[in-house]
C-alpha cells in the first residue's frame, strides 16, 4: 500500500467519521449502495456544490420561462423606453442606470430597453449554447475516445494526434475564424439562430478533445481489467463489451468533464458575442450587452455591472457544482 493520497484534515475528518458510521450500519444490515447513491451521499454533504446546483437549476428555470416572467413583469426585451433617457447624454435618467419599480435592473442607455428582460432572454442563449455545445463535445469525445482506447493501433495514434493538435491551438481565435467564414443563412435558419447553431457546433468541436482524452485513457485501463477478460472468456462480443462492460464505467468521468465544460462554453459564447461574432442584435446576449456597455463605463457603470455579474454568477455556480460533482464521483482526484 502506498501512503494515502489524502490525509484526513479538519475538513474531511467529520465525513470520514460519518463514513465509518455508515460502514458499521452496513455491517448490520448488508445493503448494496450503487455508485450513483454513494456519489449523491457525498454531494449532499458539500454545501457549496449544492448551492451551485440550486443556482444552476434556478437559472435553467428562469431561462425556460423567460417570456412568462417578463410578461408578468410587464416588460419586453425589445421595447424602447426613450422617455427614460436623458436626451443630452443618452444615459438613463434617475439613479443607478434608471432602476425603478418598473425596471428592476434599470434600462439601457440610448434606447431604454429593460435590462432585466434582456438579461432573462440572454440567459436562454448562454445556457442553450453552453449545454448543447457540451453535448456535441461529449458525443464526439466519447465516440472517438472509446474508438481510440478500445481498438488502439493506427486508429489510436491518428485520433490522439488530432486531439493533441486541437488542444494545443488557440481556440478562441480558431472559433472566431470559423464563425466569421460561416454563411449568414444555412439549413433554413437565418439571423441569430444561424449564429447560435454555428457557435454550438464550433465550440463543441473544439471541446471534444478534453472529453476524448479522458475517455481514451479510461478505456485503455478498463480494457485490461479482469471483468472484461471474464466477459470475453464467456464469449462476449466486442459490441457487448463496449456497451455493457465499458460504457457504464465511463459515465462518471464523462459526467464530471461535461459539467466542468459548460461554464467554459458559456464564457466562450459570451466572449464571441462580446467580440461581435456571436448572436446578432437585437437578440439579447450577455456578452453583447457588455460590449455595448464598454462605451458607457464612465457615464452609466450599472449597464456594465449587470450583465457582468450575470455571467459571473452563472459561471461560478456551474464551477462550484462541477467541482462538487467531481469530488463526489471521484474522491481520489484532487484536481
Amino acid at each position, binding site marked *: 500500500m*502506498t*501512503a*494515502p*493520497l*489524502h490525509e484526513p*484534515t*479538519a*475538513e474531511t475528518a467529520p465525513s470520514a467519521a460519518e463514513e465509518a458510521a455508515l460502514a458499521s450500519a452496513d455491517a448490520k444490515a448488508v445493503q448494496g449502495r450503487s455508485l450513483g447513491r454513494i456519489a449523491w451521499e457525498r454531494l449532499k454533504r458539500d454545501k457549496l456544490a449544492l448551492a451551485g446546483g440550486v443556482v444552476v437549476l434556478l437559472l435553467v428555470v428562469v431561462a425556460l420561462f423567460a417570456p412568462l416572467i417578463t410578461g408578468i413583469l410587464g416588460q419586453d426585451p425589445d421595447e424602447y423606453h426613450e422617455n427614460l433617457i436623458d436626451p443630452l447624454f443618452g444615459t438613463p435618467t434617475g439613479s443607478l442606470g434608471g432602476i425603478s419599480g418598473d425596471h428592476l435592473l434599470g434600462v439601457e442607455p440610448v434606447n431604454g430597453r429593460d435590462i432585466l428582460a434582456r438579461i432573462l432572454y440572454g440567459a436562454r442563449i448562454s445556457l442553450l449554447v453552453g449545454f448543447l455545445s457540451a453535448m456535441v463535445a461529449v458525443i464526439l469525445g466519447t465516440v472517438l475516445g472509446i474508438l481510440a482506447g478500445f481498438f488502439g493501433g493506427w486508429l489510436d495514434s491518428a485520433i490522439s494526434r488530432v486531439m493533441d*493538435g486541437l*488542444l*494545443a*491551438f*488557440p481556440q*478562441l*481565435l*480558431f472559433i*472566431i*475564424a*470559423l464563425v*466569421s*467564414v*460561416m*454563411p449568414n443563412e*444555412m439549413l433554413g435558419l437565418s439571423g441569430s439562430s444561424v449564429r447560435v447553431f454555428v457557435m454550438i457546433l464550433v465550440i463543441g468541436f473544439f471541446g471534444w478533445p478534453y472529453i476524448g482524452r479522458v475517455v481514451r485513457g479510461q478505456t485503455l485501463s478498463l480494457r485490461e481489467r479482469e471483468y472484461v477478460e471474464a466477459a470475453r472468456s464467456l464469449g462476449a462480443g466486442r459490441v457487448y463489451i463496449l456497451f455493457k462492460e465499458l460504457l457504464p464505467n465511463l459515465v462518471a468521468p464523462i459526467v464530471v468533464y461535461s459539467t466542468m465544460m459548460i*461554464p467554459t462554453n458559456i*464564457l466562450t459564447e*459570451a*466572449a464571441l458575442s*462580446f*467580440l*461581435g*461574432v456571436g448572436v446578432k442584435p437585437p437578440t439579447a446576449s450577455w*456578452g453583447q450587452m*457588455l*460590449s455595448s*456597455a*464598454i462605451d458607457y*463605463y*464612465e457615464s452609466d*457603470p450599472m449597464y*456594465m*455591472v449587470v450583465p*457582468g455579474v450575470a*455571467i*459571473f454568477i452563472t*459561471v*461560478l455556480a456551474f*464551477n*462550484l457544482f462541477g*467541482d462538487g460533482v467531481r469530488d463526489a464521483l471521484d474522491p481520489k482526484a*484532487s*484536481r
Partner: protein
Amino acid sequence: MLAYLIRRLFAAAVMLVVIVMVVFGIFFLVPKWAGVDIATSFVGKQADPAAVEGVRQKLGLGDPIYAQVWEFFKGIFVGRTYSGGGDTIQCAAPCFGYSFRSEQAVWPVLTDRFPVTLALALGAAVLWLVFGVAAGVLSALKRGTLWDRGAMVVALAGVSLPIYFTGMLSLAVFAFGLKWIDAQYVPLEDSFSGWFGAMILPWITLAFLYAAMYARITRATMLEILGEDYIRTARAKGLKEQTVIGKHAMRSTMTPILTMLGMDLGALIGGAILTESTFNLPGLGRAVLDAIRNQDLPIIVGVTLITSLAVLFANLVVDVLYAVIDPRVRLS
C-alpha cells in the same frame, strides 16, 4: 540530447505543414462546403462584381485545391504574386496574405502590431507565474487552513469572471474613478512612463485570470506529488522539509505548469483578443477585432497563421526546457 533536439525539430516541421493546411482548410474549404463565396468574403460584402472576379483570379480559386494549398504555403517562404482582374500585386516573403480591402500586405500589419502583444503577454506571464504558482504551492502546503480556503475562493472567482468584465471594472475604478492612471495607449518609443501606465492594468487583469488558473492547478498537482512515495522517502531519510519541498516536490510540480505556460503564452502572443479590445491596445488581437468589423478576412487568416506558429514555437521551447528539467525525457 542532440538526438532528442533533432527529433523535436523534425516533429515541429511536420506540425508546421499540418498547421498551414488546417488554416487553409478553415478559410478556403469550410466556407466552400458551407456554400459561401470565398472571393466575396475576401473583398468584403459591398464589393462590385468585377473586384470580386479579380480577387477570384488573384487567389486562383478556380484552380485545383492542391495547387491552391501549394501557392498558399509557398507564399510564406518565397513570396507570392497575385495576378488577375487587370492588375498584379506583389507580396514579398514572408507573404501571410494580402488585404484586398485595405490594399496592403498582411505581414507588415502583423509585425507592426506584434510588439504590443508580446509585451502584454510576457509582462502578464511574469506576474501570473510568480503569484499563481506561489499561491498554489502555499495553499497545498497549508491545506485546509484559512489561507488555503481564501486563496481558492479568490481563484475560483478569478476563473469565473470574464476577462473583459474585470478589465472594464478596473478601468472604471482606477482610470476613471480614482484617476490613478491614464489608460490611453502610448507607444514605448514615445514615453516609457506613459506606456507603462497604459500597460499596467492590462497586465494585472490578464495575469489575474491566469494566476487563478495556475494557482488551482499548482495546488492540485502539488497535493498529488506530496502523496508520492519518493517524498516520503526523502522525508524518511531526514532531509530538511525545505529541501523536500524545494528540490523534490517543486521539480515535479513545475513540469505540467511549464507545458501549460508554453501553450498559454503561445496563444497569447498570437493576440490576447479580449484584453486588447477591452483596453484598446493596438496589438494583434485588436487587429483581429478590427478585421471582424471591417470584414477584412485576410488579416484574420494572417493572425491565425502567425498565432499557430507562435504556439508551435513556444511548444518547441517548452520541449527543450522539459529535457533540461526532467532527464527522463531525454532518454526516452
